[in-house]
């Protein structure tokens, strides 16, 4: 008696051909395509050429900038003479700005540690794996939780008069609430409605970092008072 074959095997000896995966499909199980085969291209030249071009553009742009702008060099270090204000490099000015409002232990130790820990744990929290819009489920409950947490954060910021954080925070919260108020499904509102919670938290964090850094770099003068950037230009 002849055994009925379930499958066909094709083979090829053409080395130039893309090798294909073979699946044995028993007739009892039904085969379904869950993912279309993706469009693949050769690394050489497609990717490698792009990398080389990107690197060349990078070198050229940096060279042009370096020809136009000189790296700063002030007077020799003098421990006797403190500049006013003494500023850290730009990427720390957000923190230095916070130092102006909170005690050093909070601004210099707790905040940065929290940020680093928060960044590290992002992929391990299911909030961040969810791709559902913020208002998709239990709208009332979401609204209450949101308003309570924003209330706590805003009160704290208000107590320490950190308006540079308060204003952007409230603006972001305003945007968060738009899809709750309006049920439009297209355009900007529709897009906002599909943003998950993790998206909002990251966007809030990035906005705060950018605002604090810009304020620290451009708007702080002697004694860390508010100074307009054009103040010294007469």
């Amino acid at each position, binding site marked *: 008696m002849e055994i009925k074959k379930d499958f066909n095997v094709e083979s090829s000896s053409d080395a*130039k051909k*893309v090798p294909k995966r073979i699946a044995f499909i028993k007739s009892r199980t039904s085969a379904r395509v869950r993912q279309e085969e*993706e*469009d*693949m*291209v*050769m*690394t*050489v*030249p*497609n*990717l490698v050429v*792009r*990398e080389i071009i*990107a*690197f060349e553009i*990078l*070198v050229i742009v*940096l060279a042009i*900038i*370096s*020809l136009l*702008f*000189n*790296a*700063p*060099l*002030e007077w*020799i*270090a*003098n*421990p006797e003479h403190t*500049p006013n204000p*003494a*500023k*850290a*490099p*730009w*990427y*720390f000015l957000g923190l*230095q700005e916070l*130092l102006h409002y909170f*005690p*050093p*232990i909070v*601004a*210099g*130790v707790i905040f940065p540690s929290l940020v*680093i820990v928060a*960044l*590290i744990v*992002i*992929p*391990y929290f299911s909030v*961040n*794996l969810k*791709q559902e819009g913020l208002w998709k489920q239990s709208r009332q409950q979401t609204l209450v939780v949101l308003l309570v947490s924003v209330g706590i954060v805003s009160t704290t910021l208000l107590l320490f008069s950190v308006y540079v954080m308060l204003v952007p925070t409230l603006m972001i919260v305003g945007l968060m609430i738009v899809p709750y108020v309006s049920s439009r499904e297209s355009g900007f509102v529709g897009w906002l409605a599909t943003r998950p919670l993790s*998206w909002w938290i*990251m966007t809030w964090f*990035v906005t705060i970092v950018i605002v604090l850094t810009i304020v620290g770099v451009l708007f702080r003068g002697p004694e860390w008072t508010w100074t307009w950037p054009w103040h010294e230009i007469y």
Partner: protein
Amino acid sequence: MNRLTEQLVRSRVWRSIFRHGLPLSNRARAEAVFYNFFLHVHPTKVRRRSIKFTYTWGLGGLSAGLFIILTVTGALLMLYYRPSIHQAYWDMKDLQFVVSSGQFLRNMHRWAAHAMVAIVFLHMLRVFYTGSYRPPKEFNWVIGVVLLVMTILLSYTGYLLPWDQLSFWGISVGTNMVRAVPFGTGDRISYLLLGGNIVGENALVRFYVLHCFVIPVAAMVFMGIHFWRVRKDGGV
């Protein structure tokens, strides 16, 4: 000319170095990737979607490119720089006025360093907003955070080296923040970093060693793991 190239490519010397011919057939193109030490971080084929510029914005690659530029310009700067409070500042002045293209060299290093902090941060944002930290890429995200911290530390330790007012007070502000760590630990960390209680000769040498050796070597190791993981986790 064509025949000359062909002969060259066929020669034993060429074959001993490259092991494959010109990348004219798909087979030779694949060989060009997996027989090459530098290219073998790549698969021989990639998804068209992942090499679309507007997906990664090339930011991870540009971070690596900036690291290369910084290594090259940094090594050249080391030829003219001595980490001593009596010489460092004047070496900077010499770079500016005596060494040919010294100012240009310094500018390249400085602007590339600032750019790297910004670009690495943007790369992190790209990875976040495309959701590329999702399993199985969780751990590579963590390695990325380590790389971000290292990039900032590299830039920060370099900031002291010119030994001008900007460096001195920039570093003083930063190390004062470290002192805020409670239970006397902050003072100890700061003492360890500065080799004393103030930013002086010892601090300059320590920052120099951290900046030119310890952190770059550590960063290279982590970058190696990072790139390897990108592939092992299934590519971009």
